[in-house]
C-alpha cells in the first residue's frame, strides 16, 4: 500500500495552486460569476501556462482539484473545453481524432457532450432524440438536449440519440448511438441557460436539433453502442467530478482554517474546533475514495462501485463542507468567496449522475460482486 502521489505530481499540484491563487483574482471570480460569462482569457492562460495536461491522468486529477479549490467556476472552465474528448480517444476513428480531437487538445476548439434531455434527466435510457438513417447513408437528427456544458460556446458536441426503438422496457438502453455534431450545421441551435445558482462562469445551454444532417463518418464507433460509450465515459468523468468536489471541500476547509488562524475568539470555541476536525476528516475520506477509484481507472481497470462511491461521497462532502464553513463563519463567509463556493458546490450532487443514481449503481454493482445478478 502506498498513499503518496509521485513527487512530480505533487510539484504540479503546487504549480497549479500558485496559478489559481495568482490568476483567479477576486475581481475575476466575481466578474465571471455575476455576468455568467465563460472566461476565454483564463482558459487561454491555463492552456498556455501548461496547467492543463491531458496526457497524464494523475496530473489532470490534482489540477482539477487545485483549480476548484480556489474557484470552481473558473477552475472548471479552465479544463472543460475538452469535455467529451475521452469518448473520441476511446471510440473515435483516426479521422475523427484528427479532425475533431486534436484541435481541442491544441486549445483551439471547444467540445461538448450532449446526452441529458429536458424530460429524461438522470434517466439516460429514457432519452427521445432520434437519428434516422437516410438512403444515402447519412443520418438526420431531431431532438433537444438540456444542461449541456459548453453548449453555447462549443464548436462541436457529441450527441447521444436513438437509432432504433427500445426492444423492450428492460432493454431501453439498446439502439442508441453517438455522433459528432458541428454547432454551425443547419438546424442546430443553442439557448444559453442563465440563472444557474453556481458555477456561473461555466457555459450551459439547451440544444435543439431540427433535421440536422449528419454524415456517416461522424458516427462514433458502432451504431447501437451509444449507451455503453456514455457509461464508459461516466466512469471517467465521475472521477473528475469527485476531484472537483474534493477541491471545493478543501477550499471550504481552507477558509474556516484561515478564520481560525486570524480570530482567536472564533478558534477558541471548542464547537468550532470539532467542526474543523470533522470537516478535515471527511475531506480526507473523500479524497482517499477518489484516489482509489482513480488509481484503478488509470490502470485501465475501472471499478464502477468505487467510482460511484467516490463521486457520491465527494459530492456530498463538498456541499457539507461549504454549508458548514459558511454557517460557522457567518457574515465573514457571506461577503467572501465562501458564499460562491456554497452556491457552486450543490451541482456536484446533481450532475454526471445525481447522488441517487450513484447509489443505485453502487447497490447493483456491489450486489453483483457479492454474487447476486
Amino acid at each position, binding site marked *: 500500500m502506498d498513499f503518496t502521489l509521485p513527487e512530480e505530481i505533487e510539484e504540479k499540484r503546487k504549480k497549479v495552486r500558485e496559478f489559481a491563487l495568482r490568476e483567479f483574482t477576486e475581481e475575476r471570480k466575481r466578474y465571471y460569476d455575476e455576468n455568467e460569462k465563460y472566461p476565454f482569457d483564463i482558459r487561454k492562460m491555463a492552456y498556455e501556462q501548461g496547467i492543463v495536461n491531458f496526457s497524464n491522468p494523475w496530473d489532470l486529477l490534482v489540477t482539477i482539484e487545485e483549480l476548484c479549490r480556489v474557484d470552481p467556476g473558473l477552475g472548471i472552465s479552465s479544463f472543460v473545453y475538452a469535455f467529451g474528448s475521452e469518448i473520441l480517444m476511446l471510440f473515435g476513428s483516426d479521422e475523427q481524432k484528427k479532425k475533431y480531437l486534436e484541435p481541442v487538445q491544441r486549445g483551439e476548439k471547444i467540445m461538448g457532450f450532449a446526452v441529458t434531455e429536458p424530460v429524461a434527466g438522470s434517466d439516460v435510457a429514457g432519452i427521445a432524440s432520434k437519428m434516422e438513417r437516410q438512403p444515402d447513408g447519412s443520418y438526420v437528427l431531431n431532438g433537444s438536449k438540456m444542461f449541456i456544458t459548453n453548449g453555447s460556446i462549443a464548436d462541436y458536441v457529441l450527441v447521444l440519440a436513438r437509432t432504433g426503438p427500445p426492444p423492450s422496457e428492460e432493454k431501453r438502453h439498446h439502439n442508441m448511438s453517438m455522433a459528432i455534431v458541428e454547432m454551425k450545421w443547419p438546424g442546430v441551435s443553442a439557448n444559453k441557460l442563465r*440563472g444557474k445558482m453556481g458555477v456561473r462562469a461555466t457555459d450551459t445551454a439547451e440544444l435543439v436539433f431540427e433535421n440536422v444532417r449528419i454524415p456517416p463518418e461522424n458516427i462514433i464507433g458502432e451504431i447501437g453502442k451509444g449507451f455503453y460509450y456514455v457509461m464508459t465515459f461516466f466512469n471517467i468523468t465521475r472521477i473528475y467530478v469527485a476531484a472537483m468536489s474534493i477541491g471545493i471541500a478543501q477550499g471550504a476547509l481552507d477558509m474556516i482554517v484561515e478564520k481560525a488562524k486570524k480570530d482567536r475568539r472564533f478558534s477558541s470555541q471548542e464547537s468550532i474546533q470539532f467542526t474543523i476536525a470533522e470537516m478535515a476528516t471527511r475531506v480526507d475520506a473523500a479524497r482517499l475514495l477518489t484516489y482509489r477509484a482513480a488509481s484503478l481507472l488509470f490502470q485501465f481497470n475501472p471499478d464502477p462501485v468505487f467510482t460511484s462511491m467516490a463521486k457520491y461521497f465527494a459530492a456530498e462532502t463538498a456541499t457539507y463542507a461549504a454549508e458548514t464553513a459558511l454557517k460557522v463563519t457567518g*457574515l*465573514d463567509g*457571506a461577503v467572501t468567496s465562501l458564499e460562491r463556493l456554497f452556491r457552486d458546490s450543490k451541482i456536484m450532487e446533481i450532475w454526471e449522475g445525481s447522488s441517487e443514481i450513484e447509489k443505485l449503481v453502487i447497490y447493483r454493482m456491489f450486489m453483483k460482486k457479492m454474487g447476486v445478478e
Partner: protein
Amino acid sequence: MDEEHRVLESVVGEFATKEIEPINKQIELEGIPIDLKKKLSAQGFLGALAPYELGGASLDRLGYSILLKQLASASPSVAFYIFLQNSLVIKSILLEDDIREKVMSISSGNSSGTFYYSNKLNFLDYGGVVNDGRMLRGTLNAVINSDANIFIIPDNNGRFYLLENGYSALDEHEKLGLRGLRFSPVRFEVDIGNAVELPVNIDEILDDIHLPISSIALGIAQGALNKAIEYAKERSAFLHKLKDFQPLAFGMAQAYSQLDILKEYMVNIAQGERDINKELMLKIVSIDFAREVSKLALQVHGGYGYLMDFGIEKYYRDAMFLSILGGNHIDEKIKLSSTIFQEKAGWI
C-alpha cells in the same frame, strides 16, 4: 388556533400566491417593487406590529408569526423585509415618542428602514462607526436592506442611533440570499445633531427575534417542501413518477412530519405565555431544518432545481443567509445550554 388566525393564514396565503409568486423572479433580480410594498401596506402587513393609527395591523405574536411564515413560503425576501421593518425598525422607533410618526411612513411604504445588529451574532467587534461626540463616522461592511432611508446603527459604544442622512451605500456584495433586499457596505458620516439616539436594548431586541426568525424559517421549509411535493407528482424518471421512489418519498414524508411538528410548536408558543427559552429552542431547531429541507427540495428537482427559473434554489440560499443573519449562533447556544444546566455551560 382560533378562527381569526385561521382566516389570517388563508388570507396571507392567497396574497402570497396572487401577488408574490408571479413576480418572484423580479423580486430576486430587482428587489421588492414599490407596487408590492403598497399592496402589503394596504393589507396592513408592512407595519404588521405597528398600531392601527400608525398604519399598522397591530398583530399579536401568533398573527405576526403566521404572516411571516406564509410570506416566506413564497418569498423569504419579502418576509425578511417585513421582519426587519417591524421587529427591528418600528419597534425601535416606538421607543421614542417624539418620532412615532416615522412609523407611518414605513407602514405606508414611503420609507424603508434598516437596523444593524449583526456584529452581536457574528464574532465581529463593534466599532465600525465611531462616535467622537460630534460625528458618527465609519463603515459597516455588511448591511442588509442598505438602500433604506432610515438607518438604526450602533456606535462603537453600542449605543444606537437613528439617521436619515449622512449615509452612502457602497457597491453591493455578491448576494448569497434574500436577494430582494440590497446588501452592501454603508459609509456613515453624520453630524450627531442629525442623529436620534434610541434607548435600544440590543439583548432584548435579539431575544425578540427568535420567534419571527423561526416563522420565516418554517415558511421557507413549507414553501420549498410544497414545491418539491408538487414536482415529484409531475416529474417522471425511469418510467415512474419521482414520488414513487422510496428514497425521495420517504425523505419528503420525514420532512413533512417534522414541519408539522414544528409548526404546531410555533403556534403553541406564539399563543401561549411568552417563553423566551422555547422561542430560542424553536429557532435553533427550525433554522437548521429550513436548510435541510430546502436542500432536499432542490435535490428533488435535479438540474432544474439549480436554475433560478424554477424558484427552488432561492430557498436553499435564503435559508443559509437567514441562519447567518438570524441566529443559531454560538452565543445563543451558550445561553440555551446555561438555561438547561441551570448554570453557566457550554462556554469552552
